[in-house]
């Protein structure tokens, strides 16, 4: 009997720098599995963000570019415009995409750029040490909201999937989670669907993934999953927000 479970060939052998319980590893694997299944690694270019996944390029085995903070969608635009045959995805966190890079993502989505964005929402800045993100929850304590996020002072968390789905340009916009195995199975399906839309040169696609950050939340990995289920899922409902067919 052969092996029934192997590492995707699109993942490298490097040991990641991610913290115990971090969901980046799961998401990297899902992206790699999809790229293997679609057999597109030879024409894929990934774009790493600034944030915890800044070194993501070390963990994949296909071409990669590293962006400045928030600018990955503009780089992806540049690549797709000059090489529409390449499969391009950006991998971005909530500080990168929803704060400093909000302009770039909105306009890339609105132009209908034919690339895929994997948006990892864990409601906090990870790499810089746990500061408040645009997606941090009301009353969530972070190093820059030590008394909890005061929504009267800094507003409510930004719902990225809903915001981008509100644009009139056809797109595939979906939110899933990577908290429980059932979420992970669904997350892989929607990531694959996003890449398929790109292969058909159909539309821009964005997959928001509700994730955890046990280290900066100050919780065990198990408690972090529970916290995300109790606090994030009610505010960030899972599901498809837009499909090109419906537009």
């Amino acid at each position, binding site marked *: 009997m052969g092996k029934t479970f192997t590492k995707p060939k699109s993942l490298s052998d490097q040991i990641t720098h991610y913290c115990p319980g971090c969901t980046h590893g799961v998401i990297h694997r899902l992206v790699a599995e999809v790229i293997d299944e679609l057999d597109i690694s030879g*024409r894929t270019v990934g774009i790493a963000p600034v944030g915890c996944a800044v070194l993501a390029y070390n963990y994949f085995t296909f071409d990669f570019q590293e962006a400045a903070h928030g600018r990955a969608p503009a780089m992806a635009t*540049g*690549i797709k415009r*000059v090489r529409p045959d390449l499969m391009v995805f950006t991998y971005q966190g909530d500080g990168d995409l929803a704060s400093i890079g909000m302009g770039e993502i909105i306009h890339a989505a609105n132009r209908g750029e034919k690339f895929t964005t994997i948006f990892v929402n864990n409601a906090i800045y990870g790499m810089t040490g746990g500061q408040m993100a645009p997606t941090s929850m009301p009353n969530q304590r972070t190093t820059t909201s030590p008394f909890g996020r005061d929504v009267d002072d800094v507003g409510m968390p930004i719902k990225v999937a809903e915001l981008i789905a509100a644009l009139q340009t056809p797109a595939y916009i979906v939110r899933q989670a990577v908290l429980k195995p059932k979420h992970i199975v669904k997350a892989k399906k929607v990531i694959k669907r996003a890449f398929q839309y790109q292969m058909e040169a159909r539309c821009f696609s964005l997959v928001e993934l509700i994730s955890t950050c046990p280290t900066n939340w100050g919780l065990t990995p198990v408690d972090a999953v529970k916290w995300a289920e109790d606090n994030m899922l009610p505010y960030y409902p899972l599901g498809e927000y837009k499909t090109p067919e419906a537009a």
Partner: protein
Amino acid sequence: MAKVLMKGNEAIGEAAIRAGCLNYFAYPITPQSEVAEYLARRMKEVDGVFLQGESEVAVSYMIFGASAAGARVFTTSSSPGISLMSEGISYIAGAQCPAVFVNIMRGGPGLGGILPSQADYLQATKGGGHGDFRLLVMAPASVQEAVTMVMQAFPLAEKYRNPVMILGDGLIGQMMEPVEFSDDLKTDASDKDSWATNGMDHRGSSQRNLVKSLFLDPEALNQHNLTLKAKYDQMKQEEVRFDTYNIDTDYQVLIVSYGTMSRVCRTAIDNMKKEGVEVGMVRPQTLFPFPEEQVLAAAEKKSCKAVASIEMSMGQMIEDIQRSVQGKRPVHWYGKCGGDVPTPEEVTEFVHTLL
């Protein structure tokens, strides 16, 4: 090919196409918007890429992405826009990607004005973005020279895997002059497969390429910066370009001036010659690398009493001239940078104060 009469900004756009660059991303800003307007139509005809980005910041990363994917690519902007692009320019230089940036300078600082200026000299030659990097900076003094330099800029950017900047001013962009285009530089002969993220299948390789500017290991970053420095040193050896005027006479004053300003200086030199006053000029065509040796040699001529930096800024190039002249002659500054180009009479009047 026959000469055609073209506005500087349009000629710059056409020059890029003739140089085989069919990819242009830009954001509108006065006084260079005609480049984007021209290419919005023209790129359709040649089946090229034209995209108006949402900001100069985004445009600089569209350039980065396209260049890293192996394409010839360029943008044009003006001073405040170049400030916004400076973040991306630093990343492009750090990641060693070729690209061409055209700055049709206007007055600053801040919003400044929309008239011609040379106030971005230091930004272009000494920095403009964070970190240890240089741009190869070329300064045209006519529409024809802008065309030639744009066409030369692409192979130079590829030779050094570094951004090249064409530093023009509002007058170069706005005036019409006869120009001729050559078709000599169309092919990209550089080996992009060795570094570009153009897809493993595309280059028939199982080795992936990585384009990045991050080096967390201090020794690796130091080595990376030494690699960059070696390129800038090579530029100093191989890419210095300059022109001279009235340099074979026993001039009493040496003018150093570039771009539009140097043309006014030529007229002033001609006028002074009629009065019996000889004035020589060195006109840098590359601002980085700066023609240090040539300026020094011209300043050291026995007859030469003083050197004048004449520029449409409050004295920026003068620092390079002083560095080149090494204290062997006094170096003076004259200029204006509100948008009015100094007249030949004003230049003459200033030179007389040095005699």
